[in-house]
């Protein structure tokens, strides 16, 4: 079975203007990993370790300097956004702030379909209804504005926006961190259920090691742009090799 997502030797650096000279800042260096269907990969690291850069490269907001991204065996130019946004979807940290407050939820979902699919009006309506139902929301929620939802429901709406295009991979950028514990448990259950039923793969970017241990199959520890540790979650937790990983695991337990 070929992997869903295969990343080899990915690097990215930024330039910072300093007077006449330019200073090179290496954000990511030689990152390689593979992610299979219905698996979860967790990416852990401190701020400035390149987690968000990696997420940006994977959804095509930024272009990598070197390296290759392969989707189901095919090398892709991921910044061709129109073509690949069906496959990889992104969920932001704060659901409340990433939704347009002036737009009804149904309208928002309709826009996603209108721009990215060839469905006609009736098909779009059916699709929206199906997606809302899948996430445990009601039909009339399509007529609601984002401020009328509670925190957990908003996170569901954000998920609906991501899942409506039937993606294969979902990138969760700290999407579970700010939630209340009982709400987080609900969303985690929902994600696990979706993974079980639809075979979704997740790329989980987080700081919460407890959560990583619970829901991820593999993990990747980033430290200053490089890979500190990677492998199966249980292996990494059992015998971390890099000093930073050891420190991280010690601070959490």
């Amino acid at each position, binding site marked *: 079975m070929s992997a869903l997502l295969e990343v080899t030797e990915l690097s990215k650096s930024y330039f910072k203007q300093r007077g006449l000279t330019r200073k090179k800042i290496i954000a990511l260096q030689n990152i390689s990993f593979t992610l299979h269907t219905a698996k979860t990969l967790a990416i852990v690291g401190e701020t400035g370790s390149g987690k968000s850069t990696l997420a940006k490269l994977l959804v095509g907001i930024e272009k990598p300097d070197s390296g290759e991204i392969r989707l189901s065996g095919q090398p892709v130019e991921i910044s061709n956004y129109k073509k690949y946004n069906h496959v990889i979807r992104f969920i932001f940290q704060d659901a409340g702030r990433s939704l347009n407050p002036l737009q009804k939820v149904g309208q928002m979902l309709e826009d996603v379909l209108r721009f990215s699919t060839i469905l006609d009006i009736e098909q779009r309506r059916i699709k929206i209804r199906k997606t809302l139902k899948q996430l445990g929301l009601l039909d009339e929620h399509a007529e609601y504005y984002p401020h009328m939802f509670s925190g957990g429901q908003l996170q569901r709406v954000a998920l609906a926006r991501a899942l409506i295009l039937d993606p294969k991979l979902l990138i969760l950028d700290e999407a579970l961190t700010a939630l*209340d*514990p009982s*709400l987080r448990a*609900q969303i*985690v*259950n929902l994600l696990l259920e979706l993974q079980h039923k639809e075979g979704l793969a997740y790329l989980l970017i987080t700081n919460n090691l*407890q959560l990583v241990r*619970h829901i991820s199959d593999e993990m990747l520890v980033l430290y200053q742009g490089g890979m500190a540790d990677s492998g199966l*979650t249980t292996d990494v937790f059992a015998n971390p090799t890099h000093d930073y990983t050891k420190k991280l695991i010690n601070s959490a337990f």
Partner: protein
Amino acid sequence: MLLLDIKNLTIELETPEGLIRAVDRVSLSLREGETRGLVGESGSGKSLIAKAIVGVLNRRWRITADRFSWMGQDMLQVSTEQRRKIIGRDIAMIYQEPSRSLDPTAEVGEQLEEAIPNHLLEGHWWQKPFLRKKKAIALLHKVGIRDHQNIMQSYPYQLSEGICQKVMIAMAIAKNPKLLIADEPTTALESTTQAQLFRLLASFNQLKGMAVLLISHELESVARYTQNLSVLYCGQLVESGDTTAMLKHPFHPYTHALIKSVPEFQPELPPKTPLYALPGSIPTLQHLPIGCRLGPRCPNARKECVKTPILDRLQNHYYSCHFPLLSRDDT
């Protein structure tokens, strides 16, 4: 000796649709040198209680209490002036987002020096500016900032969230308070800095006997650093008591669910299995259920739950539920 003793604190908000009771008869007490955690989900009124204690709520909120005393002095009787004086002397508070609560237009050093009260500086008036600066540097060292020269001269936006929070703590402990209220001190921080900060608070608690009221929505971090715990749900006090005893055997279904929903407290739970979660979500303040506010979501709710349960106790362990989980076999 009891430092803070609050009984049946009720906080209400007047709206065009009538009174909304955001905090419903919450009792809270703190001994000297105690660390107490206050846990609840967002919107459960944790921050309101903290603000009511410090007295910074604005006039739209109506605060009533059966008893509200600070070190034996009834705070409801004294004048506002007096009250502000006492609170200003004894209680310090750390707010949620440090970079937003600091003044963006002034240098950190200046703000820190301002927070040091005059009576703590011993010396003649011409020595005061020098002493003040020295004290500010000492405070920064105390909270674990070594590079005081740079930090003192920078503006809040130039510093990271963790450093800002440390500066806030330095400002809070500048007046040697008897009680430190930390309102979600770690939400904006990373896990390694979080641990550092909690250790810092714990060390002040042990070295100076400063009582700490730690407010957070993360049960796991609060549980590790506190002796006692109070759990709030939707403005009602659900359970309070000794932290370890409560984690081991919660009496209230909500506390039970809270503990079950955190993977850390379930070491034998295999990965990738669903977590325990209560159905539904927290009601908004406009649509609160009557009686026990957990009622509609509670797995063991019965007819009696439409009446608000009174706070019951079992050896220092308070709970408010008609049907507590008292059976000794661990579920």
